[in-house]
């Protein structure tokens, strides 16, 4: 069975002047369990809205999403999803450990189990020794690691990532990408990674979905047939990136015309 099936998903917002803003215009894709999929699209194309719908924060206007065969509805749907945002979005008044523990606190684990789980994921993202630090005492990269640990700690069926490295400097972002691949291979999670960075998408994922400018539609699908761990200087990655860039640029050119 497919892990995720999204068919004909649409989303529009009704603005205050009653006009409709089409954000997603019929999007379909499928994912196997444990796959790493990147959704690549220009800024402001509705990628974040797509993730919000998948996370149950917003409702879709039309279309269907199946997770492990069960339809996904807005609100509490029993599907555990880990979310990593562009910004770390940690609670500044909680220590790193307590931030990772936060989403566990309304679960079934005892206080002690929660602390153990938080500790385990804290160590997994290599933040051991920083348990009792407050977020603002750490660098942006470390804060984002804590955010990833928080998302993994709930042991999600699917990990949703919304441009998580775009506010980091390139060197830190590279380290974090390698780290993410390590975590993904260790945990075997299904990952949906949204980005506007072509090479980032190619470097990370097995499957690529290029979506159009708003309203978002699938423009192109590509598989990246390169084994892990990948090397940043691998020519095959550059070739794929070039191949993906072409439709991307054509799309932008069409848009300008």
């Amino acid at each position, binding site marked *: 069975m497919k892990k995720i099936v999204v068919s004909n998903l649409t989303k529009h917002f009704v603005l205050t002047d009653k006009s409709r803003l089409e954000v997603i215009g019929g999007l379909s894709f499928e994912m196997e369990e444990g796959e790493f999929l990147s959704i690549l699209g220009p800024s402001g194309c509705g990628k974040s809205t797509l993730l919000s719908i998948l996370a149950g924060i917003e409702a879709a206007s039309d279309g269907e999403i199946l997770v492990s065969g069960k339809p996904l509805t807005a609100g509490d749907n029993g599907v555990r999803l880990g*979310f990593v945002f562009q910004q770390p*979005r940690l*609670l*500044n008044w909680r220590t790193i450990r307590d931030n990772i523990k936060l989403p566990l*606190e309304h679960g079934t684990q005892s206080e002690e189990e929660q602390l153990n789980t938080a500790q385990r994921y804290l160590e997994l993202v290599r933040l051991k020794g920083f348990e009792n630090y407050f*977020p603002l005492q750490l660098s942006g990269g470390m804060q984002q690691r804590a955010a990833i640990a928080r998302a993994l700690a*709930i042991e999600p069926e699917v990990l949703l990532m919304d441009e998580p490295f775009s506010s980091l400097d390139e060197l830190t972002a590279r380290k974090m990408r390698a780290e993410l691949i390590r975590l993904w291979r260790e945990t075997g999670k299904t990952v949906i990674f949204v980005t506007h960075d072509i090479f980032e998408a190619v470097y990370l994922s097995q499957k690529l979905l290029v979506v159009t400018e708003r309203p978002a539609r699938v423009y192109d699908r590509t598989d990246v047939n390169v084994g892990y761990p990948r090397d940043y200087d691998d020519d095959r990655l550059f070739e794929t990136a070039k191949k993906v860039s072409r439709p991307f640029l054509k799309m932008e050119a069409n848009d300008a015309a």
Partner: protein
Amino acid sequence: MPTTLRTYSILVLFAAWVALSFVFSPQVLPGPVPVFEAIWENMASGEGFYHLYKTIFRVLLGLFIAMVVGSVFGVLMGLSLKAEKFLESWVMVGLTIPAVVYAIITLLWFGLNDSAAIIAIGVTAFPAVAINMWQGVKDIDMQVITMAKAFQMPRADIIRKVVLPQTVPYVLAATRYALGISWKIATTVELIGMSSGVGYMLNYWFGLFSMTQVLAWTLTFTIFLLGVEFLFINPFEKRATAWRAAVQV
């Protein structure tokens, strides 16, 4: 160390008082010794505690009203644009009218009793609370709320763990302002129309031209307020904002 700096600052103030008391005659500015003697005598006779208690009672009840009404106003104004437009002018009017006018009006309406004082305090102090809470609600970070929703946190948990901690600094600021305002208006009401309380005693000793007693009573309540600040508000603030202190290296 901030604590030693604070001690120095109080010592400097004290030294300035002593120095000035040598320059002026005791009728104009008595030194600390006669003033503290007067405080001691007031308290020893029991009369001091009675008037201090009356003022504290009025201040605390008035402060309570101001905090409740001000918080309701502030939260509504922060949450809804309509409420903001509707209530903003009330708060501004409340803020603009001199406190002494509230004192006169409540005394005329409710007579020369405690409720007049308490209501005057509540009305005078609530705009300061409303403005702080309004700002506090507006400054709530929506991004972390979205985060909490994405992790399917229950609504009650979101309010308790994500929203309320963000408002702590504003609640503290509101309490501080309101406490300062409350005590000022309390003495004014007592001075105009009461027969008990610190304000009444100030008026009494003003009639007898006793600078020593005027200072003694002022100091009595100031010490009480500083006690509240350093025994309750300050330690609570330190605990609630430890994360911020930890960041300032």
